[in-house]
């Protein structure tokens, strides 16, 4: 793994008696895009507020490029750019005036940087209009520009896709990916749109009731348990095949989707199953591994937790 930009250790936050965030730990490396997903009120925004120093940490620590957010706030936050909750601007100013104001807080205003970002995010036409005339999507884009204005090493985007149209979403996704690789930025994204997180993120964390219940590389997560991947076998007689496989391998959970039977197995087992099917005169047209969508994983996780909660 590359050099960690953000290190979150045992982060805990109490609001009075209520625990909003419980012992959350993760880290994000250079160029890595980390997606934080979870239901409403799970603690995503709380986590972001603690990371950016907006709220006081009850226990645990947040370190950005080696600087503690509490004890060394100014140095730590210098490398952070972000939108928290909603992208809010001074409505009576134009987009450009807003950008200049925030840029001025970092010293000399770098107009090249502003112009570059405005151009990349296709805001040239409206940048001189007042922010109060902007749509939510435009504010989101302005928010991103504003977050990147100081060339941060950690970009925090809270619900960045809200209000963007489908083209905007794709552009934004491509842009974030590009920026992350080109500028070696660690990106922390929280979102409800799971397909987008799936398409964008390298790593995901699923957070629920203040606890980080799953945290791993997205491909690993999608493939399931490493030595037991999910396979789809395209066969001539799927229902029959499913029946005999269930009979032969007692514990296998076999699904039939169209001409496919889908099951979870190690590669050794798949070879066995294929031989077994051939010996039973079932025509095999092909096999491939199947990945679960993030949505499926998310609901699996959340439901599993719910069930556990009930029990």
């Amino acid at each position: 793994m590359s050099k960690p930009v953000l290190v979150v250790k045992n982060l805990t936050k109490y609001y009075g008696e209520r625990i909003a965030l419980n012992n959350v730990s993760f880290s994000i490396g250079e160029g890595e895009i980390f997606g934080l997903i979870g239901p409403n009120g799970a603690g995503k925004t709380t986590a972001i507020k603690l990371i950016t120093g907006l709220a006081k940490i009850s226990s645990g620590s947040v370190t950005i490029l080696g600087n503690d957010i509490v004890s060394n706030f100014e140095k730590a936050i210098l490398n952070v750019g972000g939108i928290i909750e909603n992208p809010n601007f001074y409505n009576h100013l134009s987009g450009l005036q807003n950008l200049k104001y925030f840029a001025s807080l970092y010293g000399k205003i770098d107009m090249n940087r502003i112009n570059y970002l405005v151009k990349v995010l296709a805001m040239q036409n409206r940048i001189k209009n007042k922010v109060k005339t902007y749509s939510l999507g435009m504010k989101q884009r302005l928010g991103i520009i504003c977050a990147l204005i100081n060339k941060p090493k950690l970009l925090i985007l809270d619900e960045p896709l809200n209000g963007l149209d489908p083209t905007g979403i794709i552009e934004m996704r491509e842009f974030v990916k590009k920026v992350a690789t080109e500028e070696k930025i660690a990106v922390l994204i929280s979102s409800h749109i799971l397909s987008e997180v799936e398409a964008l993120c390298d790593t995901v964390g699923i957070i629920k009731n203040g606890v980080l219940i799953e945290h791993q590389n997205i491909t690993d997560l999608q493939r399931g348990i490493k030595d037991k991947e999910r396979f789809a076998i395209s066969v001539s007689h799927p229902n029959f095949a499913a029946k005999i496989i269930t009979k032969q391998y007692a514990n296998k959970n076999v699904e039939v989707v169209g001409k496919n039977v889908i099951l979870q197995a190690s590669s050794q087992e798949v070879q066995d199953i294929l031989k077994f099917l051939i010996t039973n005169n079932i025509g095999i047209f092909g096999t491939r591994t199947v990945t679960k969508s993030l949505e499926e994983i998310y609901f699996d996780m959340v439901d599993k937790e719910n069930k556990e909660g009930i029990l």
Partner: protein
Amino acid sequence: MKLFRITNSETKKILTRPSLYIMGIFLAILLVFTAVIYNPTPLENSTKSYQALTLNGVLSPDEVIRNFNTVKNSYTDAKVSDLGAVINFYSNKTLDFSTVYSNKDENSTAMAKLNSAFIAYSAIDSNDKSIYEGAKKNLEEAYTNFKNEYNKFFSTSYPIIRITENDKAEIEKIINLLDNHIYQQILTIPNHNTLINTLTSSKLITDLQKTLSKIENIEIENEVLAELNNINNSIKNKLSELELNINNSETVEEIQLNAARYVSVKTMGERLIGNKLYLELVKNKSDYSVNKLNALNTNPFVNDKQEVFFKNFISENIAIDSYLYENNQYDFEYNRNFSKFSIMGKDAQAFDYAFYSMELIAFFIIMCACITAATSIAGEYTSGTIKMLAVRPYKRSKIISSKFLSTLLLTFLLLLLSAIIVIITGIINYGINFTSILTVFNGGSVFVISPILMFIIYFLTILIKAIVFISIAMMFSVLFKSVTPAIIVSLLTYFVAPIFTSFVPLVPVLTFLPLINIDLFKFFGNQFIASSASQNSFVQIFTSQNFLSSNIFITLSLVIVSIALCLITTFVLFKKRDI
């Protein structure tokens, strides 16, 4: 350096606010408005009125002297004929000295009676029953009489008699002891030897006499009158000297000068005597003397607070008059050539107009500063931009400091700009006069300073007032996190504070309330002008700060403490709370 950077950005941001331009328009209107309504009414000027008489055509010295005598007579007719009468005028209206003295005399008589009855009693033989009973009765009567007189004396006149609390306690102690001995021992034990021994050994009677004599030694009337008579005589001498000068004068100019001096000395003397008497009367402030003073004052609503105020105002006037008198500077108008309000205007000039104008303009600018400060943090919360701002590389304390400093900077610039405009307008309309100003600092020391310096002092006191209200508004801004309540409460505080000052009764604790101790300019010889000379009731209500604390250093420390408390609350709240 970083603080400078964020303050700079903050100031530029405030400058883009549309509301600031609305404020600017109002300020411009106000500047024009004050220029239009300023209507200086010249005071009746002794020098001028005399000169007016002489300048009607070319007159010979004889004619001028004749005119002078007319003027002199008209003055004496219209005012008080003679300085002795001034004293009578004041003393009749103030303290009923005669009552005090008759009481005191009666008291001494009663004391003497008691003494003699006591001597008579101790001299007789106790075996002679009839004489003994008679003497005993005499003593008892004398004592009762004495006690009644004593009670009357202290119940009616104590408040205006200068007797220390210790002395009074001493007398009461002795009376109590006498009570015990005489009533109990005379009436119960028919052995007068014991009583005599006790009384003699304890020296009760002697002690009582000694203590009472302390009261007798205080010559209230004579002491005051002696001082006043000194001034009176000195004035009389000066006046006759001036009269002689006038009679010996050869040119009209010379007569004019001396005649003007004559009028000045007379007016000054009258004022000096009147004021000294007044001060003497309010020295032992009590209900009794306040009632008496109500009769003295034409204003029937003199309350405790006003009395304290007048007391300070009068000591200021005494300081001024004594200074001028002792330095033989008879230009009576000298100390009046500078004022804040139109009614005091003599030869109105740029500085007079500037003071008059700045009063209203500063009121408005500080109000705008309150709104700006109340919006500064609460506005960021309301629009949600606080989250954009708080993730920049500045500690919370720096963010709040930048808000405070930028508001202060803008307020300062607006005040400075207004002051410059107002002075320029004043110069154009009325011309400028750099004659030094006689002023009294902190109620006692007299200074002659340049009007420019005076104006700078005035400007600084306005700035201090602005800092107080900006701090208060900042505190509410952080406290409420919402624009509307922050502005409402800040403005309420701003409007209510002066009204509160005008109407709170003079309770010692209240005089230490920070909000009613903001105006520092009153300590530069402007107490009276600031609080009662204005005809403009709006200005009077909202700008006057009555004289509650009599010391600039107490007031200044209260101001500093209140600024510090507001700012500490603001910083701590903003630092500790989650966004």
